[in-house]
C-alpha cells in the first residue's frame, strides 16, 4: 500500500510538472482531486477504516493530497507567469520612439530680472511703485529740477505729443524718475521704493532702442546720507550678481535732481573675451562698466513735492533693467530684447518655475 502511494505520488507530480497548458493541469487535477479522482477515491477509503488503520494509512494519503495540490498550484502559477511573459514579450514596442512634445513657454529676461530686483529690494524694505508712461513735462522735468532751458533737457531726446490748448505738455517719460515725484507727493515719508518700467528716448542704434526699461530707487527718511546710498548699491549688486567680489567705483557726476550726484561703475574681469562682473576694474585684465546713476535727492525736488528738505533727505538711483540683464546673463544685442524671436526667447528666457526667491537664489 505504502509503495503504491509513493509511486502514485511520484507519477502524478511528474505528470503535473510535465503538463504544458493550464487545461492539461486542470485535467490532471480533476483526475486526481476531482469528484472521481484517484486521490479523492483514496480519501474515501479512510472513512470506513478503524481508528488504528486510519492512524497508519491516513498520513500518507493526506500527504499525497497536499503534495499534489501544491504541485498543481505551483504548476498553474508557473504556466500563467509564462503565458504573461509571452504576452508581454509580444507587446514589446520601440521605446526609442519620441513622446508627444509639449509646447515650451518662457518668461522674458526683462520680466525675470524685474522679479529678481523686486525680491532683493523687498528684503531691504523697498516696495514696488509704478507710474504712467505718458507723463506731463512737470513730473518728468520741472519737478526734477530740470527747467525748460536746462541743457539736460536736450540730452534726453524726448518724445513729445502735440500741444493741446490749455493743457500741460505731454510726453513719453524719459526715465522712471517721475515715479519719485508721484510717490513723494502721495506717500508720507519714510519712503523706500523701487519703480521699474518702460521708458522712452528718441534714439536708435546698436546699443540704444527708442523704448527700454529702467528701475528707479528712492529712499526718503531722516538722517540718510551718501554712505547709505553706497551701502545700498553695493548690497544690491552683490545680491543681484550673487558674488561677493563686486567692486564699485563711485564718480562724481551731475544730475539736476540729485546733489551730490554719483555715477557708479562696477568692476569686471575679462574671461574668454566676455566681461564678467566682479573683481577690481583696475586689475590688469579688468575694466569698469557704468551701471548706475545716483545721488542725494536735490532739496528743490523734495520741496517740489511739498516736503520739508530740512526734515527729510534721501537718495535716489536709476539703472537700466535691460542692461542689468545683459550683464548678468550675457546677451550682447539690446535690439533682440524687443524682436520677439522665439529662438532668442527660448534661449535667453526663463522657465515659469524659475521664480526668484531669497532661499533659492534670485538668479536662474
Amino acid at each position, binding site marked *: 500500500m505504502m509503495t503504491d502511494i509513493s509511486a502514485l505520488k511520484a507519477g502524478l507530480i511528474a505528470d503535473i510538472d510535465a503538463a504544458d497548458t493550464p487545461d492539461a493541469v486542470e485535467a490532471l487535477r480533476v483526475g486526481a482531486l476531482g469528484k472521481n479522482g484517484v486521490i479523492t477515491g483514496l480519501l474515501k477509503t479512510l472513512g470506513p477504516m478503524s481508528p488504528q488503520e486510519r492512524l497508519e494509512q491516513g498520513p500518507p494519503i493526506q500527504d499525497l493530497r497536499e503534495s499534489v495540490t501544491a504541485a498543481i498550484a505551483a504548476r498553474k502559477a508557473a504556466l500563467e507567469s509564462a503565458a504573461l511573459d509571452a504576452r508581454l514579450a509580444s507587446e514589446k514596442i520601440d521605446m526609442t520612439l519620441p513622446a508627444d512634445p509639449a509646447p*515650451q513657454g518662457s518668461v522674458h529676461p526683462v520680466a525675470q530680472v524685474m522679479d529678481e530686483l523686486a525680491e532683493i529690494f523687498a528684503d531691504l524694505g523697498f516696495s514696488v511703485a509704478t507710474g504712467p508712461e505718458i507723463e506731463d513735462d512737470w513730473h518728468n522735468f520741472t519737478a526734477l529740477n530740470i527747467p525748460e532751458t536746462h541743457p539736460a533737457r536736450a*540730452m534726453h531726446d524726448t518724445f513729445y*505729443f502735440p500741444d493741446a490748448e490749455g493743457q500741460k505738455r505731454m510726453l513719453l517719460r524719459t526715465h522712471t524718475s517721475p515715479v519719485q515725484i508721484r510717490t513723494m507727493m502721495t506717500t508720507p515719508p519714510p519712503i523706500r521704493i523701487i519703480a521699474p518700467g518702460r521708458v*522712452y528716448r528718441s534714439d536708435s542704434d546698436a546699443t540704444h532702442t527708442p523704448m527700454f526699461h529702467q528701475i528707479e530707487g528712492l529712499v526718503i527718511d531722516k538722517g540718510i*546720507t551718501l*554712505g547709505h546710498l553706497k*551701502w545700498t548699491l553695493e548690497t544690491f549688486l552683490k545680491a543681484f550678481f550673487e558674488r561677493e567680489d563686486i567692486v564699485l567705483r563711485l564718480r562724481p557726476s551731475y544730475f539736476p535732481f540729485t546733489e551730490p550726484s554719483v555715477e557708479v561703475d562696477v568692476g569686471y574681469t575679462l574671461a574668454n573675451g566676455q566681461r564678467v562682473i566682479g573683481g577690481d576694474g583696475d586689475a590688469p585684465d579688468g575694466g569698469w562698466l557704468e551701471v548706475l546713476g545716483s545721488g542725494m535727492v536735490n532739496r528743490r525736488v523734495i520741496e517740489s513735492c511739498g516736503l520739508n528738505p530740512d526734515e527729510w533727505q534721501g537718495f535716489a538711483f536709476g539703472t537700466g533693467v535691460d542692461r542689468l540683464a545683459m550683464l548678468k546673463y550675457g546677451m550682447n544685442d539690446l535690439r533682440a530684447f*524687443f524682436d520677439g524671436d522665439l529662438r532668442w526667447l527660448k534661449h535667453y528666457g526663463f522657465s515659469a518655475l524659475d521664480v526668484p526667491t531669497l532661499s533659492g537664489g534670485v538668479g536662474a
Partner: protein
Amino acid sequence: MKFTLSWLKTHLATDADLATILKKLNAIGLEVDGVDNPAEKLAAFKIARVLTADPHPQADKLQVLTVDHGDGTPLQVVCGAPNARAGLLGVFGTEGAVVPSNGLVLKKTAIRGVDSNGMMCSSRELELGDDHDGIIELPGDAPVGQAYADWAGLNDPVIDVSITPNRQDCMGVRGIARDLAAAGLGTLNALIVPPITGVGPGPDVRTDDAEGCPAFYARTVRGVTNGASPEWMARRLKAIGQKPISTLVDITNYIMIDLGRPLHVYDMASLTGGLVARKGKPGEQVLALNGKTYTVDDTMTVIADEEAVHDIGGIMGGEHSGAQDGTTDVLIECAYFTPERIAMTGQKLSLTSDARGRFERGVDPAFLDDGLSIATSLVIHLCGGTASEPTRAGSPPLTPKIIDYDPDQCLALAGVDVPADEQKRILTNLGFTVTGEAASFDYQDGMPVSLPGHWAVTVPSWRRDVDGWPDLVEEVVRIVGLDHVPSTPLPRVPGVARPTATPEQLVERRVRRTAAARGLSEAINWSFLSEKEAASVGGGDWVLANPISEDLKVMRPSLLPGLLSATRRNMDRGASSVRLFELGRRYFKQDERATVGFVLAGDQSPRGWQTGKAQAFSAFDAKGEVVALLAAAGAPVANLQNFGDASGAYHPGQSGTLRLGPKVILAEYGVLHPALAKQFGLSGTIVAGEIFLDAIPGKRKSGFMRAPYAPPALQAVKRDFAFVVPEQQEADALVRAVKGADKKAIVDARLFDVFTGPGVEDGHKSLAIEVTLQPGDKSFTQDDLDAISAAIVKAAQKLGGILRR
C-alpha cells in the same frame, strides 16, 4: 572736451604721470572718455643725418645714401626722394618700423641690386601732412638718434573728458587744471593778463537787448596781417581735432578751449557803422559760418550793424563778416549772453556749436576784460597792428553768491567726516572765498556749549552751478574722493522682510508665469505702432509729435498688432508654430491699462507618429488660454458669461467676450479676422486674445482661513442627458439651465457631446450633458432621482430642448 597733456601742464605745475592724472580726473567727476598718444605709432622713427648720397648704379631716379641714425653704425639706404642729399637731417624708419600711412613693415631688402636698410620718410608717410614731394627736412640743430616724435613735440597724449552740463568752467583747459590742483595734483600756474595800451577810442558797439546780451565788450585792432597760425598753436589745435584756419580765427578757438571763453572776430571792412546786440526782427536771415541760412525772430539775440545781421549772438558768426586772408582791421567781440536765451535760441534753430555749449552753461561773467585783453594781446603779437581802447557796453551780472555753510553739513549729507580746515582748504583751492568760524566749543555762563560754525562762502564767478550748501558738500566730497564715503547700512526693520508687492503686481506675476507654464513665450513689443496698425485695431488716442519713424508713432490701443508683427517675423524665419504673449499697457486718453495679449499661430500640434497630421489652432484654444489666464488672475471664472460680440479684429462668428455681468468685459478672444491677418502678412488660422487685467475686480482680503469643508461621506452620482435643441441655441445657456434645475443636488453639469446627423432633425442639434449629483446625509432614492431628472428636463424645455430617448 579734448586737450593734450602738455597743454594742461601750461596751467598746472605737476609731477604726476599720465595714469595718475587720468585716475584723478575720473575721481573728481571729469570722466575720461579716452586717451590717445599719437607718438606711439611713430616710436620707431628717429632723427637721422644723410652722410653720403651717390647715384644708384642701376636707376637714374634713385640714390644710395648712407645714413647716421645715432647708433654709430651708418646704414645704407636706397632713396627715391629728389631732395635727398648729403648733410640733410630727416626722419628715418629702421628695420621693423611700421609706416603709419600704409601699414608697411620696413625690412632689409635689395632695390635694383643694392641693399637698403630702412626708409627716409615723407610727411605723408608719417601722417604728419600732405607733403609727398620729398623726404622731411629738419633744421640743423635736430639731434640725430632721438625719437622724432619726442623732438617734434608729438609725444603728447590727447585726453578726452566728458564734461557734465553743470561744469562750464571745465570747458576750458584752465578749469580742468584748477580742479586737479585743488585735488592735490600740483599747483595752478598764475594767469598773466597782459596790459594793452590802447590807441584811440573803442569801437562803436552797444547792446539794445540787455536781457539777452547784458554786456558787449570790444576792441579794434587795425593793421593786422592774417596768415597761418604759429606752429605751436596749430599743433595743439590739430592734436585735439580742430582744423587750423587762420591766425585770427585760431586765436578765438584757442582761447575758447584754453580758457573756456568764446570770442568773435569781425572783419571791419565788412561792417557798415557800429555793431549792436539786439533782438532779432521776425523774418531776418543770417548766413552762418556753417554755410546754412537761419531765420531769426524776436526771442533771439543777434549782433547786427546798420545793414545786416552778422552773428547769431553767442552761437555762430556770419559767413560774410568773419576774418579773411586779406583782413587788415578787426573788431574783437567779448560778450556775455544770457544762458537761458542761448539755450532757447539753440533749441529753436537746432543749431549746436562750441560757443553755444559754453554760453548756455554760463561763462565766467567776470572774465570779459581779461578775455578781451588776452585775445587782443595774441592778435597784436601774432598779426601785428594797433589796438584801440576797449568799449564796454552794458555790464555782466556780477553779483556774487554767498552761501551760508555749516561744515557739519558735509557729514550730515555725505556721511563722510571731513575736518573743517580741510574743507576750507578745498573750497579755497577751487576759488571759493571762505570767511567765518567753524564749530566751536565754549563755556557760556560757566556751562559747556557747542556753537555751530557758520561760514560765509563766496562762490567764484565761474561757478554758476553752485547755489546752495549741498553744492559745497558736493565740491568737498568729490575732491576728498567718494572712496572715502563709508558704506553705511540702511536701518533694517527687525524680523523677516515684509511682503511688498501690490495686488496688481501679484496678478501680473501669476498671469505671466501661468502663460509661460502653458507653453507661451513672453515677448516685449514696442509700445508704439504705425498709424495703419493702430487703425486696424480701432485707432490710438496718443500720436507722437516727433516719432523716430512712421512705424513707431501711435501709442498702442491693443497688444495684438505688436504680437502679430512678431508672429510674422517668426513665420518669416521658418517657425512652424508660434505661441507668444505680452504683458503690457494699452494707452487711452484717460489712462493706461494693464493687459495681457496672446497670439497662437501655425501648428497647434505638429504632425506626429501617434497624432497624425499637424493640427491647426481653433477658437477654443484661444478660449482655453483666456479662461486659464483669467483664473490665474483671480477672476471668478465660473460666473463669467460669454457674449459673441468681440471687436472687429476677430472672425465675427468665431470669437467672443467674457463678461462679469453684462457690462464689464474681462477678455476678448477668437479666430483673428482674415482681413487683419492678411494685413500683417499672415495666413492660415490665427487665434488670439486679450485679457483686460484692469477690469478684473480685486479680491477682498479675508485672511488665510479657508471656508470650512469636509468631503461628503456619500459618493456623487452621475447621470447623462441629451437634449435636441434648435441649431442657434447657445450651449452655455442650456448647461446653465440644467445646472440651475436643482441648486442643492446638482453640483456640476458638463457638456460632453454635440451631435448633428441621423436621428436629429434638420436645423437642430443634440447636446449631451453629464450631470453630477451630490447626496447629502443619505443616498438618493429612486423618487429623488426621478424628481431631479424631471426638473432638469423641464428646465431644458424652457429653452426648446427636448429630451432625446
